[in-house]
């Protein structure tokens, strides 16, 4: 008797919801075991994490501060992944967006009327992210160069370029040697909602709904889904595959660039160290856990932001390493990845020997 995987005709709906939920529980259990090994009570720790992330106005605003860039980059990654374009460069696109927004805020402040400075920063951020994503998009569609490696490499180029700017030419002469640019003029500050949470939240929520509508309710979204499922079929339908991929990837980069623009105009108000906090990598987990559904992304991003803030909180309160949050995030994905098999395949026990199955497969 042996076990055989059969491809499902359609993706299992039940598994689609159950797999992320079960994965979260498994990661809680695994983290709990780690905590127990080191002599810490997991229940108290998880309760403290939850209270720290969602239990107070301050904690919740910090959770939102992390969730906003996670939502935007998560949306960007999900859009590219829909087309099976493995954009793992959200981190670099975010950084380039931050650089472009900073450039406008720092050097065009005098030329642009104050009321338009902030919109100009935001648009520049989107353009910066899109520009950075255009490189792998064009290389992929024109020359068939593997996009996952190009986007990965460009992350580090962007991060190093930002370092060069704030250590070098953009460094604040009045900054006492602190690695960072001069602060932005007030007109380039993103308004706050409460605490440190800024109106980037509205952008993220609005864009999540917009992206869902585009993907599910428009002709273009339908074309994208055909391209994602089978580029060959799309070509037979007369859909321009390359052009649509470039367009979607530019949008994907623009979403991450927007995240970077929001970080510099909403949080740091200057270009400085700490722009690349790994949001672009966590975004991949978020997109995957959300099964690439734009409406699920804000909720998953909120959960992930909460885990990070909760990790910081247990460090302050219980002296536990804050990296616990990152460990938990990593642990969520393993059961997720294992579980995705069940959404696409049905497992069946057969009486055939593997050899017989192989012969049949050859026929």
């Amino acid at each position, binding site marked *: 008797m042996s076990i055989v995987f059969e*491809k499902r005709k359609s993706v299992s709906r039940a598994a689609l919801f159950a797999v992320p939920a079960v994965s979260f529980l498994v990661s809680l259990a695994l983290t709990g075991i780690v905590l127990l090994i*080191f002599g810490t009570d997991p229940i108290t720790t998880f309760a403290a994490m939850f209270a720290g992330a969602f239990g107070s106005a301050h904690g919740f605003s910090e959770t939102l501060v992390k969730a906003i860039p996670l939502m935007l980059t998560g949306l960007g990654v999900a859009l590219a992944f829909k087309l099976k374009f493995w954009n793992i460069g959200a981190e670099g696109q975010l950084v380039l967006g931050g650089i472009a927004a900073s450039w406008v805020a720092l050097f065009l402040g005098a030329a642009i009327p104050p009321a338009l400075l902030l919109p100009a920063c935001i648009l520049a951020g989107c353009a910066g992210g899109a520009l950075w994503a255009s490189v792998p998009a064009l290389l992929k569609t024109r020359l068939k*160069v593997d996009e996952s490696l190009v986007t990965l490499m460009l992350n580090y180029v962007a991060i*190093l370029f930002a370092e*060069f700017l704030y250590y070098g030419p953009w460094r604040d002469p009045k900054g006492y040697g602190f690695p960072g640019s001069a602060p932005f003029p007030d007109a380039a500050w993103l308004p706050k909602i409460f605490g440190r949470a800024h109106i980037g939240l509205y952008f993220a929520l609005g864009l999540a709904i917009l992206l869902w509508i585009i993907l599910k309710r428009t002709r273009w979204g339908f074309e994208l889904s055909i391209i994602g499922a089978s580029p060959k079929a799309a070509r037979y339908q007369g859909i321009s595959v390359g052009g649509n991929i470039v367009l979607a990837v530019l949008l994907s980069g623009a979403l991450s660039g927007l995240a970077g623009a929001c970080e510099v105009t909403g949080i740091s108000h200057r270009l400085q160290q700490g722009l690349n906090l790994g949001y672009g990598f966590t975004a991949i987990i978020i997109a995957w856990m959300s099964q690439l559904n734009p409406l699920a992304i804000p909720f998953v991003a909120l959960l992930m932001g909460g885990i990070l803030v909760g990790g910081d909180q247990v460090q302050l309160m219980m002296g536990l390493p804050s990296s616990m949050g*990152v460990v938990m995030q990593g642990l969520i994905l393993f059961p997720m*990845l294992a579980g995705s098999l069940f959404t696409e395949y049905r497992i069946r026990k057969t009486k055939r020997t593997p050899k017989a199955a192989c012969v049949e497969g050859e026929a």
Partner: protein
Amino acid sequence: MDLVSSILAITVRAGTSLIFATVGEIFTERAGIQNLGIEGIMLMGAVASFATSFYTQNLALALAVAVAVGMAMAAVHAFLTVTMRANQVVCGLSMTLFGTGFSSFLGQRLGPAANNFRLMGLKAAKFSPVKIEGLADVPVLSALAGQDILTYAVYLLIPLSWLYLYKTRPGLWLRSVGEDPQTADAMGIGVLKTKYLYTILGGGMMALGGAHLSLSYTPGWSENITGGRGWIVVALVIFSMWNPARAVWGALLFGGINAVQFRLQASGTNIPAAFLNMLPYLGTIAVLVLMTWWEALSKKIGAPAALGVPYMREDK
């Protein structure tokens, strides 16, 4: 020691961890599996070996623990990508995320109570240079000969892994699995077994690279001790065109960039450092473009054709 020899000595020292991990990833990718968890596995290897060395002062045991940890992580990667057919890119990235977080966690929990359970700032047994008599005065060779045991091991690893890959029967089987798993399967090679075996072996080598960092190159534990070396390795594998012998040049080049940077920073400028650091990443993109642009070249230099494609007998 003259200037050239001293730069070469630093270059070789900096290149050791890179070569261990690069050869590990070459074996993994030759079996058709891409493991982007290198950075995480190297970090876990570094923290595990340092903690073992601190408590036991036994360097052999420290290396063994690192290898075991690396193999265990790679085994999870193999299980998820081979058996469960998970997306290799996403799985590797989560391995790195997990390794980065967990190594940092362990670094703050495995230490002695006297040091607030931290491993930072502690001293442990480390590998020291072993001089080879008679070579100490020869100009270039003195730089190669004044290294630690792990670097000497790399001198052996490069030709041996090249021989294994290109001149032995198991090496041929391995390459055929990465090129054309269907044919390999038909020939009776255990495709899934091969993928597991070399992914796990590769993980052990990546962890050794991490151990070299915490036990020799920069002795001690600090968070993110790898400083992005795991990603440079991804670049190096492409640069070396999946050939362990060519990995030397790439590793020396990037080790050299490291060494030159030391000099530049010592002389007070660090602006060009950012651009020097970009070179490996930009160079990799250039190689990727050339490789795909000229596909005949790609076949000649041997990118495994079935890299990243899960192997399924049933799907036809």
